Protein backbone atom coordinates (compact mmCIF):
# COMPACT_ATOMS: atom_id res chain seq x y z
CA UNK A 1 0.00 0.00 0.00
CA UNK A 2 1.10 3.54 -0.65
CA UNK A 3 0.82 5.90 2.29
CA UNK A 4 0.01 9.53 1.85
CA UNK A 5 2.41 12.12 3.17
CA UNK A 6 1.92 13.95 6.43
CA UNK A 7 0.77 17.00 4.54
CA UNK A 8 -1.65 15.05 2.37
CA UNK A 9 -3.69 14.09 5.43
CA UNK A 10 -6.10 16.92 6.07
CA UNK A 11 -6.72 18.41 9.48
CA UNK A 12 -4.67 19.89 12.27
CA UNK A 13 -1.95 17.82 13.86
CA UNK A 14 -3.71 16.21 16.83
CA UNK A 15 -0.40 15.59 18.59
CA UNK A 16 -0.16 19.40 18.85
CA UNK A 17 3.64 19.25 18.91
CA UNK A 18 4.21 21.72 16.08
CA UNK A 19 1.94 24.29 17.66
CA UNK A 20 3.73 24.00 20.99
CA UNK A 21 7.13 24.46 19.37
CA UNK A 22 5.76 27.50 17.58
CA UNK A 23 4.59 28.97 20.88
CA UNK A 24 8.00 28.36 22.41
CA UNK A 25 9.67 30.35 19.66
CA UNK A 26 7.07 33.08 19.92
CA UNK A 27 7.78 33.33 23.63
CA UNK A 28 11.49 33.87 22.96
CA UNK A 29 10.65 36.59 20.47
CA UNK A 30 8.31 38.29 22.92
CA UNK A 31 10.77 38.01 25.80
CA UNK A 32 13.56 39.61 23.77
CA UNK A 33 11.33 42.29 22.32
CA UNK A 34 13.03 45.01 24.38
CA UNK A 35 16.55 43.67 23.84
CA UNK A 36 18.22 45.81 21.21
CA UNK A 37 20.83 43.33 20.08
CA UNK A 38 22.10 39.88 20.91
CA UNK A 39 25.82 39.31 20.37
CA UNK A 40 27.31 35.82 20.47
CA UNK A 41 30.96 35.52 21.40
CA UNK A 42 32.23 32.58 19.37
CA UNK A 43 35.52 30.92 18.58
CA UNK A 44 35.12 27.35 17.42
CA UNK A 45 37.75 26.22 19.90
CA UNK A 46 38.48 26.38 23.58
CA UNK A 47 41.17 28.30 25.39
CA UNK A 48 41.22 31.48 23.33
CA UNK A 49 39.58 33.67 25.97
CA UNK A 50 35.95 33.88 24.87
CA UNK A 51 34.73 34.18 28.41
CA UNK A 52 37.36 36.78 29.30
CA UNK A 53 36.32 38.87 26.30
CA UNK A 54 32.64 38.39 27.15
CA UNK A 55 33.06 39.47 30.75
CA UNK A 56 35.38 42.35 29.96
CA UNK A 57 33.12 43.55 27.17
CA UNK A 58 30.06 43.34 29.40
CA UNK A 59 31.70 45.43 32.10
CA UNK A 60 33.06 47.95 29.61
CA UNK A 61 29.60 48.34 28.11
CA UNK A 62 27.97 48.67 31.50
CA UNK A 63 30.44 51.37 32.46
CA UNK A 64 29.40 53.15 29.30
CA UNK A 65 25.91 53.18 30.79
CA UNK A 66 24.58 50.41 28.60
CA UNK A 67 22.10 47.99 30.14
CA UNK A 68 23.76 44.62 29.67
CA UNK A 69 22.80 40.99 30.12
CA UNK A 70 25.05 37.96 29.80
CA UNK A 71 23.72 34.52 28.96
CA UNK A 72 26.24 31.76 29.56
CA UNK A 73 25.55 29.32 26.74
CA UNK A 74 28.59 27.26 27.65
CA UNK A 75 26.25 25.03 29.61
CA UNK A 76 28.80 22.34 30.40
CA UNK A 77 31.66 24.61 31.44
CA UNK A 78 29.97 27.65 32.92
CA UNK A 79 32.23 30.31 34.40
CA UNK A 80 30.60 33.63 33.58
CA UNK A 81 28.51 33.97 36.73
CA UNK A 82 31.44 33.73 39.08
CA UNK A 83 33.60 36.03 36.98
CA UNK A 84 30.85 38.62 37.09
CA UNK A 85 30.26 38.17 40.80
CA UNK A 86 26.71 36.90 40.30
CA UNK A 87 25.19 34.47 42.75
CA UNK A 88 21.94 32.56 43.14
CA UNK A 89 19.32 31.65 43.93
CA UNK A 90 17.43 32.82 40.90
CA UNK A 91 14.19 34.47 41.93
CA UNK A 92 10.97 33.08 40.49
CA UNK A 93 8.16 35.59 40.34
CA UNK A 94 5.53 36.90 37.98
CA UNK A 95 5.74 33.78 35.81
CA UNK A 96 9.39 34.49 35.10
CA UNK A 97 12.80 33.61 36.38
CA UNK A 98 14.75 36.74 37.15
CA UNK A 99 18.44 36.93 36.25
CA UNK A 100 21.08 37.24 38.93
CA UNK A 101 22.73 40.61 39.32
CA UNK A 102 26.46 40.76 38.73
CA UNK A 103 29.12 43.44 38.82
CA UNK A 104 28.09 46.79 37.39
CA UNK A 105 24.46 45.66 37.46
CA UNK A 106 24.96 43.14 34.68
CA UNK A 107 22.11 40.63 34.47
CA UNK A 108 23.39 37.08 34.39
CA UNK A 109 21.99 33.60 33.80
CA UNK A 110 24.24 30.58 33.78
CA UNK A 111 24.08 26.90 34.63
CA UNK A 112 26.83 27.86 37.07
CA UNK A 113 24.01 29.19 39.24
CA UNK A 114 22.14 25.89 39.12
CA UNK A 115 24.83 23.28 39.67
CA UNK A 116 26.49 22.16 42.86
CA UNK A 117 30.13 23.19 43.11
CA UNK A 118 32.38 20.75 41.34
CA UNK A 119 29.51 18.85 39.74
CA UNK A 120 29.09 18.57 35.97
CA UNK A 121 25.92 19.29 34.06
CA UNK A 122 23.83 16.13 34.52
CA UNK A 123 20.24 15.19 33.94
CA UNK A 124 17.58 13.80 36.25
CA UNK A 125 16.63 10.75 34.26
CA UNK A 126 17.08 7.02 34.11
CA UNK A 127 16.35 6.95 30.40
CA UNK A 128 19.88 6.14 29.24
CA UNK A 129 20.96 6.51 25.62
CA UNK A 130 21.99 10.05 26.43
CA UNK A 131 23.63 10.51 23.06
CA UNK A 132 20.16 10.48 21.49
CA UNK A 133 18.63 13.33 23.47
CA UNK A 134 21.41 15.29 25.21
CA UNK A 135 21.80 17.79 22.38
CA UNK A 136 18.06 18.46 22.39
CA UNK A 137 18.12 18.84 26.15
CA UNK A 138 20.88 21.45 26.00
CA UNK A 139 19.03 23.29 23.26
CA UNK A 140 15.97 23.22 25.50
CA UNK A 141 17.87 24.84 28.36
CA UNK A 142 19.21 27.52 26.00
CA UNK A 143 15.69 28.17 24.73
CA UNK A 144 14.37 28.55 28.25
CA UNK A 145 17.25 30.83 29.24
CA UNK A 146 16.21 33.09 26.37
CA UNK A 147 12.45 32.79 26.63
CA UNK A 148 11.68 32.33 30.32
CA UNK A 149 14.11 34.79 31.91
CA UNK A 150 12.89 38.30 32.63
CA UNK A 151 15.75 40.02 30.84
CA UNK A 152 13.83 43.26 30.59
CA UNK A 153 14.97 46.10 28.38
CA UNK A 154 18.61 45.59 27.43
CA UNK A 155 20.93 47.45 25.15
CA UNK A 156 22.95 44.28 24.63
CA UNK A 157 22.58 40.63 25.55
CA UNK A 158 25.99 38.97 25.25
CA UNK A 159 25.99 35.21 24.81
CA UNK A 160 29.15 33.37 25.85
CA UNK A 161 29.12 30.43 23.45
CA UNK A 162 30.62 26.98 23.98
CA UNK A 163 33.69 26.06 21.93
CA UNK A 164 31.75 24.03 19.39
CA UNK A 165 30.09 25.65 16.39
CA UNK A 166 26.72 23.91 16.50
CA UNK A 167 25.11 25.96 19.25
CA UNK A 168 25.24 29.09 17.11
CA UNK A 169 22.78 27.48 14.69
CA UNK A 170 20.36 26.88 17.59
CA UNK A 171 20.73 30.48 18.66
CA UNK A 172 20.21 31.74 15.12
CA UNK A 173 16.97 29.75 14.91
CA UNK A 174 15.69 31.16 18.17
CA UNK A 175 16.87 34.76 17.66
CA UNK A 176 16.76 35.20 13.91
CA UNK A 177 16.65 38.98 13.55
CA UNK A 178 18.83 40.65 16.15
CA UNK A 179 21.72 38.23 16.48
CA UNK A 180 25.29 39.05 15.50
CA UNK A 181 28.64 37.57 16.49
CA UNK A 182 32.17 38.47 17.48
CA UNK A 183 34.85 35.85 16.91
CA UNK A 184 37.77 35.46 19.30
CA UNK A 185 41.01 33.88 18.19
CA UNK A 186 44.60 33.67 19.28
CA UNK A 187 47.32 34.34 16.71
CA UNK A 188 48.25 30.72 15.96
CA UNK A 189 47.56 28.90 12.70
CA UNK A 190 45.68 26.20 14.60
CA UNK A 191 43.35 28.76 16.06
CA UNK A 192 42.88 30.36 12.66
CA UNK A 193 41.67 27.08 11.22
CA UNK A 194 39.23 26.46 14.05
CA UNK A 195 37.87 29.99 14.13
CA UNK A 196 37.56 29.92 10.34
CA UNK A 197 35.08 27.07 10.79
CA UNK A 198 33.15 29.05 13.37
CA UNK A 199 32.97 32.04 11.06
CA UNK A 200 31.84 29.81 8.21
CA UNK A 201 29.14 28.42 10.51
CA UNK A 202 28.02 31.96 11.30
CA UNK A 203 27.90 32.82 7.62
CA UNK A 204 26.01 29.61 6.81
CA UNK A 205 23.23 30.45 9.26
CA UNK A 206 23.13 34.11 8.29
CA UNK A 207 24.60 35.62 11.45
CA UNK A 208 26.44 38.89 10.74
CA UNK A 209 29.93 39.06 12.19
CA UNK A 210 30.86 42.35 13.82
CA UNK A 211 34.55 41.55 13.74
CA UNK A 212 37.49 39.59 15.07
CA UNK A 213 39.27 39.88 18.39
CA UNK A 214 42.82 38.55 18.47
CA UNK A 215 43.44 37.66 22.08
CA UNK A 216 46.80 36.82 23.67
CA UNK A 217 48.37 38.83 20.88
CA UNK A 218 51.80 39.21 22.38
CA UNK A 219 52.95 39.38 25.95
CA UNK A 220 53.15 42.36 28.21
CA UNK A 221 55.12 42.01 31.40
CA UNK A 222 53.00 44.75 32.92
CA UNK A 223 55.93 46.89 34.02
CA UNK A 224 56.84 48.51 30.71
CA UNK A 225 55.17 49.37 27.40
CA UNK A 226 56.87 46.61 25.46
CA UNK A 227 54.78 43.85 23.88
CA UNK A 228 56.86 40.74 23.35
CA UNK A 229 56.07 37.69 21.23
CA UNK A 230 53.83 34.96 22.64
CA UNK A 231 52.32 32.94 19.78
CA UNK A 232 53.48 32.89 16.21
CA UNK A 233 50.96 33.62 13.49
CA UNK A 234 48.57 36.39 12.52
CA UNK A 235 45.20 34.66 12.70
CA UNK A 236 43.30 37.86 13.39
CA UNK A 237 44.48 39.60 10.25
CA UNK A 238 43.96 36.51 8.10
CA UNK A 239 40.47 35.83 9.34
CA UNK A 240 39.42 39.45 9.01
CA UNK A 241 40.60 39.45 5.40
CA UNK A 242 39.06 36.08 4.59
CA UNK A 243 35.62 37.10 5.84
CA UNK A 244 35.84 40.80 5.01
CA UNK A 245 35.17 41.88 8.57
CA UNK A 246 37.18 44.25 10.77
CA UNK A 247 39.92 43.13 13.10
CA UNK A 248 38.47 44.95 16.08
CA UNK A 249 41.44 44.72 18.36
CA UNK A 250 44.47 42.80 19.51
CA UNK A 251 44.64 42.15 23.21
CA UNK A 252 48.01 41.26 24.69
CA UNK A 253 48.39 38.78 27.49
CA UNK A 254 49.23 40.81 30.53
CA UNK A 255 51.10 39.06 33.29
CA UNK A 256 49.59 41.13 36.02
CA UNK A 257 46.05 42.33 35.68
CA UNK A 258 45.18 39.86 32.93
CA UNK A 259 41.75 39.55 34.44
CA UNK A 260 41.09 43.26 34.43
CA UNK A 261 38.23 44.67 32.45
CA UNK A 262 40.28 46.84 30.17
CA UNK A 263 39.27 46.62 26.53
CA UNK A 264 40.14 48.76 23.53
CA UNK A 265 37.50 51.29 22.61
CA UNK A 266 37.21 49.90 19.08
CA UNK A 267 35.77 46.68 20.41
CA UNK A 268 33.32 48.38 22.71
CA UNK A 269 32.29 50.72 19.91
CA UNK A 270 31.56 47.76 17.67
CA UNK A 271 28.90 46.53 20.06
CA UNK A 272 27.67 49.78 21.54
CA UNK A 273 28.55 52.81 19.44
CA UNK A 274 28.82 56.11 21.15
CA UNK A 275 26.29 57.54 18.73
CA UNK A 276 22.73 57.60 19.93
CA UNK A 277 21.27 55.04 17.55
CA UNK A 278 21.86 52.20 19.97
CA UNK A 279 20.69 53.83 23.13
CA UNK A 280 18.07 51.93 25.03
CA UNK A 281 14.49 53.21 24.94
CA UNK A 282 14.43 52.86 28.69
CA UNK A 283 17.61 54.85 29.16
CA UNK A 284 17.26 57.69 26.72
CA UNK A 285 17.82 60.20 29.48
CA UNK A 286 21.39 59.05 29.94
CA UNK A 287 24.35 60.34 28.08
CA UNK A 288 26.95 57.82 26.99
CA UNK A 289 29.80 57.71 29.43
CA UNK A 290 33.30 58.51 28.37
CA UNK A 291 36.18 56.15 28.91
Amino acid at each position, binding site marked *: MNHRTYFDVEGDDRSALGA*QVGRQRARVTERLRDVRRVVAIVSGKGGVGKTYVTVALARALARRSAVVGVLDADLQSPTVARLLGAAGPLR*VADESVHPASGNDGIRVVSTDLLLDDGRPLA*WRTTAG*ETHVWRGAAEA*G*VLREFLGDVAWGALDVLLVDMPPDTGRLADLATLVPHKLSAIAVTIPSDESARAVHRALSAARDVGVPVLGIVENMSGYSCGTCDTIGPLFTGNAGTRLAAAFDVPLLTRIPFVARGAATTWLPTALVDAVFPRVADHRSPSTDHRSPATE
Partner: protein
Amino acid sequence: MKFLCIDCDTQMTFEERQQPGDGTFAASFACPTCGRRVAMLANPMETQLVSTLGVEIGGRTLDEQPLEFTRKAVAGRDDAFAEDSSPTAPRAPRPVWSSDAEERLTRVPGFVRGMVKKIYSDYARDRSIAEITPAIMDRAREELGLEGM
Protein backbone atom coordinates in the same frame (compact mmCIF):
# COMPACT_ATOMS: atom_id res chain seq x y z
CA MET B 1 2.72 13.45 13.99
CA LYS B 2 -0.60 12.24 12.69
CA PHE B 3 -2.28 8.89 13.31
CA LEU B 4 -4.28 7.68 10.34
CA CYS B 5 -7.01 5.05 10.46
CA ILE B 6 -6.13 3.16 7.32
CA ASP B 7 -9.51 1.50 6.91
CA CYS B 8 -11.39 4.79 7.14
CA ASP B 9 -8.62 6.98 5.70
CA THR B 10 -9.34 9.41 8.52
CA GLN B 11 -7.00 11.14 10.93
CA MET B 12 -7.47 9.78 14.43
CA THR B 13 -8.14 12.17 17.28
CA PHE B 14 -6.13 12.42 20.48
CA GLU B 15 -7.84 10.88 23.53
CA GLU B 16 -5.52 10.81 26.52
CA ARG B 17 -1.97 10.31 27.69
CA GLN B 18 -0.61 8.41 30.65
CA GLN B 19 2.70 7.63 32.25
CA PRO B 20 1.97 4.16 33.61
CA GLY B 21 5.45 3.63 35.03
CA ASP B 22 8.89 2.33 34.07
CA GLY B 23 9.47 5.52 32.10
CA THR B 24 6.81 4.53 29.60
CA PHE B 25 4.74 7.22 27.98
CA ALA B 26 1.37 6.21 26.53
CA ALA B 27 -0.87 8.25 24.26
CA SER B 28 -4.13 6.94 22.87
CA PHE B 29 -5.90 8.01 19.72
CA ALA B 30 -9.30 7.03 18.29
CA CYS B 31 -10.81 7.02 14.85
CA PRO B 32 -13.78 9.41 14.82
CA THR B 33 -15.39 7.35 12.06
CA CYS B 34 -15.16 3.72 13.15
CA GLY B 35 -14.18 4.21 16.79
CA ARG B 36 -11.04 2.08 16.57
CA ARG B 37 -8.54 3.01 19.28
CA VAL B 38 -4.77 2.69 19.28
CA ALA B 39 -2.17 3.38 21.92
CA MET B 40 1.34 4.63 21.23
CA LEU B 41 3.78 3.38 23.84
CA ALA B 42 7.13 5.14 24.05
CA ASN B 43 10.11 3.59 25.79
CA PRO B 44 12.01 5.62 28.43
CA MET B 45 14.51 6.99 25.93
CA GLU B 46 11.74 8.11 23.59
CA THR B 47 9.82 9.57 26.51
CA GLN B 48 12.91 11.51 27.53
CA LEU B 49 13.40 12.78 23.99
CA VAL B 50 9.87 14.20 23.88
CA SER B 51 10.34 15.67 27.34
CA THR B 52 13.50 17.49 26.23
CA LEU B 53 11.47 19.30 23.61
CA GLY B 54 9.30 20.81 26.33
CA VAL B 55 6.14 19.60 24.63
CA GLU B 56 3.33 17.20 25.45
CA ILE B 57 1.71 14.92 22.92
CA GLY B 58 -1.88 16.00 22.49
CA GLY B 59 -1.24 19.47 23.83
CA ARG B 60 -0.62 20.97 27.22
CA THR B 61 -3.20 20.95 29.98
CA LEU B 62 -1.26 23.38 32.17
CA ASP B 63 0.60 26.47 31.10
CA GLU B 64 4.32 25.95 30.84
CA GLN B 65 6.11 27.14 33.95
CA PRO B 66 9.23 29.33 33.69
CA LEU B 67 12.33 27.22 33.10
CA GLU B 68 10.07 24.19 33.45
CA PHE B 69 12.29 21.81 31.55
CA THR B 70 15.51 23.12 33.07
CA ARG B 71 14.16 22.92 36.60
CA LYS B 72 12.92 19.38 36.29
CA ALA B 73 15.70 18.00 34.11
CA VAL B 74 18.97 19.52 35.34
CA ALA B 75 20.40 17.67 38.31
CA GLY B 76 21.46 20.71 40.25
CA ARG B 77 21.37 22.31 43.66
CA ASP B 78 18.15 22.27 45.62
CA ASP B 79 18.34 25.98 46.38
CA ALA B 80 18.98 27.13 42.82
CA PHE B 81 15.61 28.87 42.67
CA ALA B 82 13.70 30.94 45.19
CA GLU B 83 10.00 31.41 44.78
CA ASP B 84 8.93 34.96 45.37
CA SER B 85 8.51 35.27 49.11
CA SER B 86 6.15 38.22 48.96
CA PRO B 87 2.82 36.81 47.81
CA THR B 88 -0.13 39.13 47.84
CA ALA B 89 -2.04 36.93 50.28
CA PRO B 90 -0.80 34.58 52.99
CA ARG B 91 -0.83 30.98 51.86
CA ALA B 92 -2.01 27.95 53.78
CA PRO B 93 0.65 25.79 55.46
CA ARG B 94 2.36 23.19 53.31
CA PRO B 95 0.18 20.06 53.27
CA VAL B 96 1.37 16.69 54.50
CA TRP B 97 1.29 13.61 52.33
CA SER B 98 -0.45 10.43 53.44
CA SER B 99 1.57 7.26 53.04
CA ASP B 100 -0.81 6.04 50.33
CA ALA B 101 -0.37 9.26 48.41
CA GLU B 102 3.40 9.13 48.75
CA GLU B 103 3.43 5.56 47.48
CA ARG B 104 1.40 6.62 44.49
CA LEU B 105 3.80 9.48 43.83
CA THR B 106 6.66 6.99 43.54
CA ARG B 107 5.02 5.62 40.40
CA VAL B 108 5.62 8.94 38.65
CA PRO B 109 8.86 8.91 36.61
CA GLY B 110 11.70 10.39 38.60
CA PHE B 111 12.54 13.17 36.20
CA VAL B 112 9.09 14.77 36.57
CA ARG B 113 8.29 13.65 40.10
CA GLY B 114 9.37 16.89 41.74
CA MET B 115 7.23 18.99 39.44
CA VAL B 116 4.22 16.68 39.85
CA LYS B 117 4.56 16.80 43.62
CA LYS B 118 4.65 20.59 43.51
CA ILE B 119 1.51 20.69 41.36
CA TYR B 120 -0.38 18.58 43.89
CA SER B 121 1.03 20.57 46.80
CA ASP B 122 0.05 23.88 45.21
CA TYR B 123 -3.40 22.49 44.47
CA ALA B 124 -3.83 21.53 48.12
CA ARG B 125 -2.44 24.78 49.52
CA ASP B 126 -4.62 26.90 47.27
CA ARG B 127 -7.64 25.08 48.73
CA SER B 128 -6.37 24.95 52.32
CA ILE B 129 -6.25 21.16 52.20
CA ALA B 130 -4.10 19.94 55.08
CA GLU B 131 -3.39 16.39 53.87
CA ILE B 132 -2.90 15.03 50.36
CA THR B 133 -4.50 11.61 49.97
CA PRO B 134 -5.12 9.49 46.86
CA ALA B 135 -8.65 10.89 46.80
CA ILE B 136 -7.29 14.44 46.73
CA MET B 137 -4.90 13.42 43.95
CA ASP B 138 -7.82 12.04 41.96
CA ARG B 139 -9.75 15.23 42.45
CA ALA B 140 -6.75 17.32 41.39
CA ARG B 141 -6.20 15.13 38.35
CA GLU B 142 -9.76 15.63 37.30
CA GLU B 143 -9.83 19.36 37.89
CA LEU B 144 -6.40 20.09 36.46
CA GLY B 145 -6.39 17.48 33.70
CA LEU B 146 -3.31 15.66 35.01
CA GLU B 147 -3.74 12.38 33.19
CA GLY B 148 -1.25 9.76 34.29
CA MET B 149 0.03 11.69 37.31
